[in-house]
């Protein structure tokens, strides 16, 4: 279902959704764009192209306690997850969450992720690509599922996609703000908007054929050259919406038998990640780790799920200090040369 809403009504609507849960939206403070707690639309920055960390942090925080234990057993820490409404999520990030859903909800359901996902509503918002966005190359520039509501900004008004019953419940909080009357002009405006968005991309990459190119380039010296540059800093992994690896550690109270089991974000870029008992490391070389990261995104994931595990958000481009990112790596592999 698609509805229409006046632009000036957004603020009233967002005030009303706070009835469902805490409102979160993109904010910009001292050059730092993050999804943060907000009271109203006026505190948000809907123009920012991307946040430093994607919304995965709400569904799977950088470090959190899974359960408390003592000598008698353990108690899951699930109840304290707040209900949240995330507003302003871009299509790439919704695609990122869809990938997380596949990994955390399908074969082995992760209760911590499931609980947070259940208590989080995703209100998407259309965006203006900047020079680092490349979702057009990953086919994630538009989104048809995964959200509860999606707002497309068509200058004078919003077209609002209703993607779930929960989304529909939100609409019912303020039904008077939404209209079902769509006419020819709405369709024309929307097609125009899509065309305009497609013309805005400045990063031009072609990811077709990547699985083959990765296969062909498995032994390429390009990996060693990239490995020489990589700082193993882990930033790319932390900021990527589809990176999902974690480590688990038990903490214990001083002088007691009780404690917590915690989980925190890990990265295959770290040497420790591939270290196994006995001291053997099956990816001791930085180039091997880097190759794994990119193979997983642009080859292996396609083999398993039919699409890349890159949603084109541009975060690796905006983060890696030594310019190792989806653009430079795919180009280097194709051209068999690491660019400056």
């Amino acid at each position, binding site marked *: 279902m698609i509805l229409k809403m006046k632009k000036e009504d957004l603020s009233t609507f967002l005030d009303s959704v706070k009835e469902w849960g805490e409102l979160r939206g993109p904010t910009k403070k*001292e*050059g*730092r764009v*993050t999804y943060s707690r907000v009271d109203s639309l006026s505190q948000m920055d809907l123009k920012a192209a991307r*946040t*430093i*960390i994607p919304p995965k942090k709400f569904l799977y925080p*950088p*470090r959190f306690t899974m359960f408390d234990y003592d000598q008698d057993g353990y108690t899951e820490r699930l109840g304290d997850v707040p209900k949240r409404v995330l507003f302003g999520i871009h299509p790439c990030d919704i695609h990122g969450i869809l990938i997380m859903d596949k990994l955390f909800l399908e074969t082995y359901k992760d209760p911590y992720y499931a609980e947070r996902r259940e208590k989080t509503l995703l209100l998407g918002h259309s965006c203006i690509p900047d020079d680092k966005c490349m979702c057009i190359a990953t086919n994630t520039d538009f989104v048809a599922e995964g959200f509860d509501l999606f707002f497309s900004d068509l200058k004078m008004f919003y077209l609002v996609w209703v993607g779930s019953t929960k989304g529909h419940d939100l609409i019912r909080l303020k039904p008077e703000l939404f209209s079902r009357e769509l006419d020819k002009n709405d369709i024309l405006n929307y097609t125009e908007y899509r065309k305009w968005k497609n013309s805005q991309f400045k990063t031009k990459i072609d990811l077709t054929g990547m699985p083959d190119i990765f296969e062909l380039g498995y032994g390429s010296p390009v990996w060693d050259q990239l490995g*020489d*540059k*990589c*700082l*193993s*800093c*882990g*930033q790319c992994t*932390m*900021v990527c919406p589809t990176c999902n690896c974690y480590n688990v*550690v*038990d*903490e*214990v*109270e*001083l*002088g*007691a*038998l009780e*404690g917590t089991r915690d989980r925190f*974000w890990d*990265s295959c870029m*770290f*040497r*420790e990640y591939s270290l196994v008992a006995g001291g053997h490391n099956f990816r001791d070389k*930085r180039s091997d780790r880097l190759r794994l990261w990119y193979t997983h995104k642009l080859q292996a994931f396609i083999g398993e799920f039919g699409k890349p595990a890159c949603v084109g958000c541009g975060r690796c481009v*905006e*983060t*890696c*200090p*030594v310019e190792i990112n989806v653009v430079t790596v795919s180009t280097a592999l194709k051209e068999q040369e690491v660019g400056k």
Partner: protein
Amino acid sequence: MTRQSPKVGVYGFTGCAGDQLMILNCEDQLVDLFGATEIRSFVMAKSDNHEGELDVAFIEGSISTEEQLKKLKEIRERAKVVIAIGTCASHGGPQAMKLGEGGWEERYRKVYGNAKITISKAFEAQPIDAFVKVDMYIPGCPIDKGEFLAAVSKLVAGRHPYLYKFPVCTECKWKENPCILYAGKFCGGPLTKAGCGAVCPSYGLPCVGCWGPTDDLNVSSEYKLLKEKGYNPDEILRKLRKFGGAKVAQLLKDVENKGAKA
């Protein structure tokens, strides 16, 4: 609990005593700490100290005199586990930033003039693992209370402590900071072990590396990057060696040698 409280000793050598102070600063957990362990010796905290067999010796500070060296070796002999606390004990600290460069006597004279130190023969400060086997490192300048207590709690429970091995950058991203290095300015985060919660970049300041080097360093790439960003080699060496200790010094030497050959 049936487990016996471990016998613990806390010792300080060449350093600012900040790590020992940090232990004493664990206000809320201090009683538990003294309850869960048997603190045999901790000169900074108490007056009745007994030197004997130890389960764990926490050692702060680098080693810079013959007398310290003797004492360090003696502690090692009677301690089952030796843990370096703070960056000075772990890597040498700022007093070791010129380690191996020579000219130590000259620097010594600049500070102390021609005064003869009679107590003990002094030498260039070095981390404790230059002389004895170290079982574990809890670096920091000063150490982080949380990291220290988590490690001690595990030891008391007879379990292996776990400290982050990845660099400051990872925690920096958890704090959602834009990257200073990406913006073209110096930051030592990629070479520095996490544990501080990336405090400096969280306030917009570069990491100067006070937690000491990580296990997995790419000094050569960071060096090249900083050079590209317009830093001169001397400045880079100074910045990277401040807390980098012998490990970073050696890696930088390799970079320079390679550069000279190239």
